[in-house]
């Protein structure tokens, strides 16, 4: 027996939540589907494969004030930010929820990033499982699945009669207070397939193919923008700078990407990753090798495929993984 939320009850429930928390849901903006704060449930779109940008910006904003330095007489006073709002993100796909679970690793590891920790604790995730993945999706190869409920508080699965409701956490249970769910005997739809990508053992393989000319050839067409990193649900590199206005200084953090020229350049000019090849290789190595090693955990990629769709020059992480595995096998064969 499972729980069902009838179709016509969905939007009223979300509007009720919007009265208590900031509701973030998929909306239509100029032919794009983007997560945005929603007051009126009619703004919410339900027919989408996935949003153009990931929802990571609600936990890790593209720009955020770390703390303020207020000047009182000649002594500065450092004022930390507190996050007052509570959020609920509706319609998050399993790949993006996995992305948030991945971001937890650097941001919540000691010493925890207090801003991220507050947002994380104060955000509830209502997932929507994927009935029909897009051609770029490969979440299963990255350890998740179109119906993976492990990283959300509630997982909804659309069926003809409404939405099957899987309550995953206590936080999720709390969101459903006062909501009438029916007990039904409906089988969830079979989990669809996603693109096969040979990711098994990729971390170990990468440690052996670091110096292969493949990386330089791949970097030839990379234009070193930040698109892949910014649309990605698991990329988290950031920059920090001070800004002063009217005597008060804000130390702010913004997204940055290892692809930008100058990412690793120090004052004086020395740059250990000056070459295109080294910068491009760094992104794949960070996600697929260093990240899982640093946190003894999952790959830093959840298979959402946004980078595949948005890269202006078709640098495709699935192709990279496949090729790296091939090179790894050739290298093993060669050394006997």
């Amino acid at each position, binding site marked *: 027996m499972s729980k069902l939320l009838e179709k016509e009850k969905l939007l009223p429930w979300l509007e009720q939540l919007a009265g208590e928390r900031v509701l973030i849901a998929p909306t239509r903006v100029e032919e794009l589907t983007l997560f945005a704060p929603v007051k009126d449930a009619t703004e919410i779109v339900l027919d989408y494969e996935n949003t153009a940008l990931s929802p990571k910006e609600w936990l890790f904003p593209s720009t955020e004030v770390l703390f303020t330095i207020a000047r009182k007489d000649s002594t500065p006073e450092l004022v930390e930010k507190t996050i007052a709002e509570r959020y609920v993100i509706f319609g998050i796909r399993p790949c993006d929820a996995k992305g948030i679970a991945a971001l937890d690793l650097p941001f919540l590891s000691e010493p925890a990033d207090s801003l991220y920790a507050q947002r994380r604790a104060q955000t509830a995730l209502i997932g929507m499982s994927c009935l029909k993945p897009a051609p770029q999706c490969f979440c299963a190869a990255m350890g998740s699945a179109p119906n993976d409920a492990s990283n959300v508080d509630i997982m909804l699965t659309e069926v003809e009669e409404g939405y099957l409701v899987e309550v995953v956490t206590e936080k999720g249970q709390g969101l459903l207070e006062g909501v009438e769910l029916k007990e039904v005997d409906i089988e969830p739809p079979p989990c669809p397939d996603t693109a096969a990508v040979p990711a098994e053992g990729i971390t170990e393989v990468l440690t052996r193919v670091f110096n292969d000319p493949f990386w330089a050839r791949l970097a030839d067409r990379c234009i070193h923008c930040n698109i892949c990193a910014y649309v990605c649900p698991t990329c988290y590199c950031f920059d920090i700078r001070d800004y002063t206005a009217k005597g008060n200084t804000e130390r702010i953090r913004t997204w940055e990407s290892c692809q930008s020229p100058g990412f*690793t350049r120090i004052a004086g000019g020395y740059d250990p990753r000056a070459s295109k090849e080294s910068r491009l290789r760094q992104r794949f190595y960070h996600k697929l090798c260093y990240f899982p090693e640093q946190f003894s955990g999952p790959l830093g990629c959840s298979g959402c495929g946004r980078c595949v769709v948005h890269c202006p020059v078709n640098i495709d992480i699935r192709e990279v993984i496949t090729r790296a595995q091939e090179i790894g096998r050739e290298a093993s064969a060669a050394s006997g």
Partner: protein
Amino acid sequence: MPQAAEQGSPFVPKLATMRGAADLTPDIKLFSFELDDPAAEFDYKPGQFAFVSAFGVGEGPFGLCSVAYRKERLEFAIRRVGTVTNALHRLEPGAKVGLRGPFGNYFPLEDYRGKNIVIIGGGIGMAPLRPVINTLLDHRADYGHILIINGARSPADLVFQPEFETWTKASHTTLELTVDRGDEAWTGRVALVPQVVAELHPSPENSVAIICGPPIMIRFTLQGLKALDFANEQIVTTLEGKMKCGLGKCARCNVGDKYICQDGPVFNFEQISSFIEQF
């Protein structure tokens, strides 16, 4: 890794007051800071670094060059080279800065007891080596011969000149200075650091070499030490990289899978040669 006790955001520094800024060379000053809140005092060891904030301008990582157990003020030798360092150089005594630290690992000096120590520094590279030297000299009897090779571009650029007398006078300790080019008053050695290493040919037997300086100096000094049969594990250095957080979170300072702020900055060359990525 020993880290500062955290309450709240690990990005928020502790307030400190600049108590002194002594000119060491035309572009290097030795800063000393006092934490405003005595409860914020932290322990640290040679090799570790801290972030110093010039509020309104930015924050940078600098090696601590004072010695914690001496109960000295927190000292940093900082070269004026970019926006943050220029801002620090403009500060007057009494100015407020932010301090976050300590970060990183440290030189395992206790493991080197009973050994001969060769310390090789170039220019501002002497900064993290100074607390090493002072700690060793404070525990003189625990170590064998200490050879210090201190090089710079010119005589005016030699770092820590006020301490040369103390270092020279220490027992069983040799201080060798060298410059790339001399001036009218200079009567000392004019040679590149790796050349001095070759000339003095310290023995690798029961020795450890600790080197720090510009990448090119490290590269050639390393070659020179290998030529003298120093093994990779016997040569130790401290790496620098562009850093923003110091916490292993901004994913910028890595050399391969090693983060300079977490796994370093102190590494020996056996470790460095097995890095997946060239430094």
